[in-house]
């Protein structure tokens, strides 16, 4: 059976356009008992910060209608540990390695980006959209100027194709996307989580120590899809689309809206086999529609 899903992203060849979203697949081994990670197009590792972090205190995950809030706060072992250890383990999985880099300050991002040049990886995903950090994170992604600035600075130091991961909480995501493209981004990833909130009515307090947290899962899918469609119409660089993708139909909708690849996050929690089912579903779709490659429907809307 011919693979009709092969996808190339900024020169990186992938078996298929289905990628595990950052923060939802560890560094690639957590679901080993369920399936071989080599089946995936790629894996975006947990977001790194320069010196690592213990993440946030208190409740970290909370269920919502058709979705979930998280306030992990980038618990991670740090850039050096990734470059020395995790990246080799990820490489051994036999799928594209995407490194997600967060930061608390401009200096963090630049130094992190520089150190990662030593890592064995394929794509650098610049996370300027994490809503769970007290300093940095999403703050960089809310406005075009700051987003473009940090993009240009990291682009200047990295050897890898640079995807900038955008926040849906930005006032005008299309404007931020264009600015990042102009600043040298090789691609864009969107969306990160929506800023949301939950209340513990018994305790009469916010569920999360940080009060606000990040919403993801099928609930956000219609909004994420709209944003991906808007951004794809506005930029020429490839887009990794995500936000609530949970089956091959929703993955296909993102590809039709213009995404070159999709990332799957929270859906894997509800159904560990979600990404495998999506890959199989897209392959079957290509066969039944007579498409020699899934790229044929990209941006057909």
């Amino acid at each position, binding site marked *: 059976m011919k693979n009709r899903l092969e996808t190339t992203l900024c020169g990186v060849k992938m078996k298929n356009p289905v990628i595990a979203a950052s923060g939802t697949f560890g560094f690639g081994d957590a679901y080993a008992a369920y399936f071989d990670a080599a089946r995936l197009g790629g894996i975006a590792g947990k977001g790194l910060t320069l010196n690592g972090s213990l993440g946030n205190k208190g409740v970290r995950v909370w269920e919502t209608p058709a979705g979930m809030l998280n306030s992990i706060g980038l618990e991670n072992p740090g850039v050096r540990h990734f470059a020395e250890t995790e990246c080799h383990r990820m490489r051994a999985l036999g799928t594209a390695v995407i490194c997600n880099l967060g930061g608390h300050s401009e200096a963090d991002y630049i130094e992190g980006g520089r150190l990662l040049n030593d890592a064995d990886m394929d794509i650098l995903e610049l996370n300027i959209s994490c809503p769970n950090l007290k300093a940095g994170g999403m703050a960089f992604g809310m406005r075009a100027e700051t987003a473009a600035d940090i993009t240009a600075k990291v682009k200047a130091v990295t050897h890898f194709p640079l995807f900038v991961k955008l926040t849906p909480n930005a006032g005008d995501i299309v404007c931020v996307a264009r600015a990042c493209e102009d600043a040298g981004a090789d691609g864009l990833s969107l969306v990160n989580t929506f800023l949301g909130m939950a209340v513990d009515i018994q305790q009469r307090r916010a569920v999360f120590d940080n009060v606000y947290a990040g919403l993801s899962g099928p609930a956000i899918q219609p909004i994420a899809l709209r944003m991906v469609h808007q951004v794809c119409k506005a930029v020429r660089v490839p887009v990794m689309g995500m936000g609530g993708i949970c089956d091959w139909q929703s993955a296909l909708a993102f590809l039709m809206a213009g995404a070159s690849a999709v990332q799957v996050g929270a859906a894997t*929690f509800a159904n560990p086999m979600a990404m495998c089912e999506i890959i199989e579903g897209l392959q079957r779709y290509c066969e039944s529609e007579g498409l020699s490659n899934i790229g044929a429907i990209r941006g057909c809307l």
Partner: protein
Amino acid sequence: MAVTPTPTIRENTRIAHDICRMRVEGVPRGEPGQFFMLRAGAGMEPFLSRPISICDATAAETVFVYRTVGRGTERLSALRCGDALSVGLPLGNGFPLCAGEAVLIGGGLGVAPLLYLAKRLRQIGVYTCVYTGYNDETFLQAEYEEAAGELHAKNGGYITDMVDFSRPATYYACGPAPMLRAAARKAREAGARLYVSMESRMACGTGACLGCSIPTADGNRRVCKDGPVFDAAAVFFEDRV
């Protein structure tokens, strides 16, 4: 939505006011202290799967005992034989098995996972002294009478008050956090080794999301992957200072 093994529900009945027992066939056999991520039906609702410990298991069958507290467990309790259920694979690290003598302390639903442990220990010739603490109705007493070397039950009050921590035994506890904390303090004072099964809100259950991380003496640990069973000295380390 089906995860590799397709479980078949053989029984799902109420064994106390708000407590159900579900017997399921066709899932891999887990170890005492491990858990599964359960979800009722084939849809995405509710969104997250629910962690439920193994209460008992044979090669053919796995038993869950759970309290109906919210949407997820309500939906589980409504399932009947033949309905769609997904459980995934057995997750986490179970109870380390000891030699000699074991003291098992269960509070509330914590009595459920310890039953499987008691049975396993009995099989390998370990004498078990079991304490079960309930708030109102008791359950699983008949099973324990069969499985335990000696059995002490208490309805109301603190089960840990009954336990003698000075025995030359390995201690195991499962139950609400305050009970585990009390047990940890007493075990520490008595110099006893105590394993506790921890709870934390979970999304993935496989170690991928870091949603269930808790601080321990050894740094952050994931309840789902590094636990749920921990050495009490490591997780209640803050009480020591």
